[in-house]
């Protein structure tokens, strides 16, 4: 039901914008073209950052180093009753959206989509974003080199998210 509703967001949004603009006597076609001209350039400008990020993440995730980190984190997990299965997702999540979706699909397969582990993983996935990708795109596109407190703050928030997801899921399910 909610899924059905969200399907309407996009068409209704576009419809609303066009009708509103026409009422305001805006030449919608000309305006579209004028704005659209910047699109390809914007994508090209962030392209080097995308390649750099995907290259490094590709190497890291294909090397098998993820399992090592998982083992290192084991004692912490027991303390917060975090399911161990979500750790590869937790590590990969800040780096790559597509890689973490691959991991999430793997978790569903290994534990079953309605298991506690899968629910914590789903909750984490639905409440976080790819930090390093976002940071390199947003700051890279305008030439910012000093990102100051951005990365530490989001990493702390991610840890809070992991613990919260585990607690909330154990209360709900």
């Amino acid at each position, binding site marked *: 039901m909610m899924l059905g509703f969200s399907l309407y967001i996009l068409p209704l949004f576009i419809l609303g914008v066009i009708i509103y603009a026409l009422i305001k006597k805006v030449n919608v076609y000309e305006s579209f073209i004028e704005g659209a001209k910047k699109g390809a350039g914007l994508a090209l400008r962030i392209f080097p950052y995308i390649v750099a990020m995907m290259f490094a993440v590709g190497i890291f995730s294909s090397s098998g180093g993820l399992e090592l980190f998982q083992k290192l984190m084991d004692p912490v997990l027991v303390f917060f009753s975090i399911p161990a299965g979500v750790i590869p997702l937790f590590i990969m999540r800040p780096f790559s959206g597509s890689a973490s979706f691959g991991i999430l699909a793997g978790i569903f397969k290994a534990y079953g989509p309605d298991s506690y582990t899968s629910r914590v993983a789903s909750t984490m996935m639905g409440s976080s974003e790819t930090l390093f990708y976002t940071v390199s795109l947003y700051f890279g596109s305008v030439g910012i080199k000093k990102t100051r407190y951005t*990365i530490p703050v989001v990493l702390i928030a991610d840890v809070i998210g992991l613990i919260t997801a585990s607690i909330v899921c154990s209360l709900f399910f």
Partner: protein
Amino acid sequence: MINWLWAFLIIFGILFGLFSGNVEQLVDGMTSSAKDAASLLIILMGTYTLWLGVLNIAKKAGLIEKIANKVRPLIAFLFKGVPRESEANGLITMNIVANMLGMGNAATPFGLMAMKELQKTNRDKQKATDAMCMLLIINATSVQLLPLTVISLRVAAGSASPTDIITTSLITTFITTFSGIILGKVFSKTKRVGRMLSERKSHDAGL
């Protein structure tokens, strides 16, 4: 920090791959990433072009200003130091709204345009302003109301109740975004901590 992290991913990945004998997979990961990035570029070019076109219609119609005015007190509190007349206000609002609705493809070009506007009034062009950090924090802690991609993946995996993670995700994302904002505000206030962190980054390999 990105510098060290990037180097760490590559060095650790290559060394670990070499020693554990995953060489074939490693080489595959290296070569396919450039190819994947190129096909992603084509998709991004299309979606950014589309969304910047739509955005411009909304801008010309005064729609963005109207939406931005409605949430101005909140935006002004979160993004201190942004001039009232700056276009960044509207773009930031659009970025957050698009993120909440799960339109990630639209949110990114809006956010990138907002960064460009914020950079115009930035005195030190290499150093992020508090408003820039806040925009990144809000984007990276996710404000999505309906995690659609996760739900569709759950459907595909044959879940009996694919949507039951909506509530838990909402609670969790609220808490992470809220703590991100609080932490960001604290860090921006305590200049010493901010300076200490930005100096330490050159010694810190991250993670």
